[in-house]
């Protein structure tokens, strides 16, 4: 009984101090009213989060009742806080719905563009077939201790740049086809350069070229989660850097495949 009295005494103190902050409560109530008014007639918000709008209104009514009759500032602030939160949650849910609907539309647009691009690439490929020999395509598959590796040679890039030439279409399409036939396999795309030039710039160029190949695969419908990218610069040369021919061989992008179950060997 004694402890109960003591507790009520403590509450009295709290209630008294509550009276002192009634201005804060009025302010918070006003903010909550403004927020509720902002969403009450918004059909989008009502559609996405009807329950939260209703709760916001209900808690606001309670806050108003406490403030106009005999309630403490503590109660007013509490229900104004809840009302404010419900309003904010309703607004966020409505934004989320709008974003998701927009994303669904963009997703369709992306798929449409992917198909168009693939058709366009196949078309140019058929036109080029008579003109370009296999040596231009420069597709090498090797079965080393790193697993299956496909090398995309320097000739498929614009010199000194990261952009792929149209002649890379065949390689890229083959890669896409392979990845679609083996949906569990993942790839690591590694860029390399020769030893001429600045080391840091070489790493950046090799990274950018590897990223370009990754982007090309994603553009044709491969899930970006299956692709990792690494720029290794002038490390791990496959030929000596003394001759122009050797340097050209070192400038390359290698696509390393995981095994059939998606297990990838260690990165270099």
């Amino acid at each position, binding site marked *: 009984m004694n402890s109960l009295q003591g507790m009520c005494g403590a509450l009295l103190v*709290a209630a*008294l101090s509550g009276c002192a902050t009634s201005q804060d409560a009025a302010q918070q109530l006003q903010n909550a009213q403004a927020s509720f008014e902002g969403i009450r007639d918004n059909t989008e918000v009502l559609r996405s989060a009807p329950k939260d709008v209703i709760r916001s209104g209900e808690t606001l009514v309670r806050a108003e009742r406490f403030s106009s009759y005999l309630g403490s500032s503590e109660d007013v602030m509490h229900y104004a806080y809840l009302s404010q939160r419900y309003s*904010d*949650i309703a607004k966020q*849910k409505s934004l989320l719905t709008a974003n998701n609907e927009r994303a669904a539309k963009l997703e369709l647009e992306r798929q449409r563009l992917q198909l168009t691009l693939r058709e366009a*690439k196949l078309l140019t490929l058929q036109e080029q077939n008579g003109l370009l020999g296999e040596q231009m395509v420069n597709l090498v598959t090797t079965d080393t201790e790193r697993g299956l590796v496909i090398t995309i040679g320097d000739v498929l890039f614009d010199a000194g740049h990261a952009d792929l030439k149209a002649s890379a279409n065949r390689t890229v399409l083959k890669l896409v086809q392979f990845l679609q036939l083996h949906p569990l396999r993942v790839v690591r795309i590694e860029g390399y350069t020769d030893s001429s030039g600045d080391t840091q710039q070489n790493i950046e160029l090799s990274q950018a070229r590897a990223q370009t190949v990754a982007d090309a695969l994603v553009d044709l419908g491969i899930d970006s989660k299956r692709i990792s990218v690494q720029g290794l610069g002038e490390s791990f040369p496959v030929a000596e850097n003394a001759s122009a021919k050797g340097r050209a061989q070192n400038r390359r992008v290698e696509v390393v495949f995981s095994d059939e179950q998606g297990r990838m060997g260690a990165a270099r």
Partner: protein
Amino acid sequence: MINKLSCSAVLLLAMAGCASDPQPTEQLQLTAQSIAQAKAVGATTDIESLKQAEAKLQRADQAVAQQQFKEARMLAEQAELDAREAEADYLVGQSEVRLQELNKQINRLRTQLRAQQ
């Protein structure tokens, strides 16, 4: 004068509160659930409102231990909505990242298609 009157009325209410506020067991469970839900979706305490939710739930538990059930209920009610706000904020953030990514991919596809023609 009016202020004094309302304060004594508040005291009466507060005393009534002492007698009648039950232990908010269900509300505490609900709050814990909404925090767990926000985290399950991927929200972290980097989001201010989730940090607030956890702090308030902790204070609510302490209030229960001290038999201050009204304070416990209020804290837990606020924490529940703090957590739900955190979840909504996080999901909106994710959806915006997704939109950016889609727009980027679409722009890249358009550039490539122009280059093909």
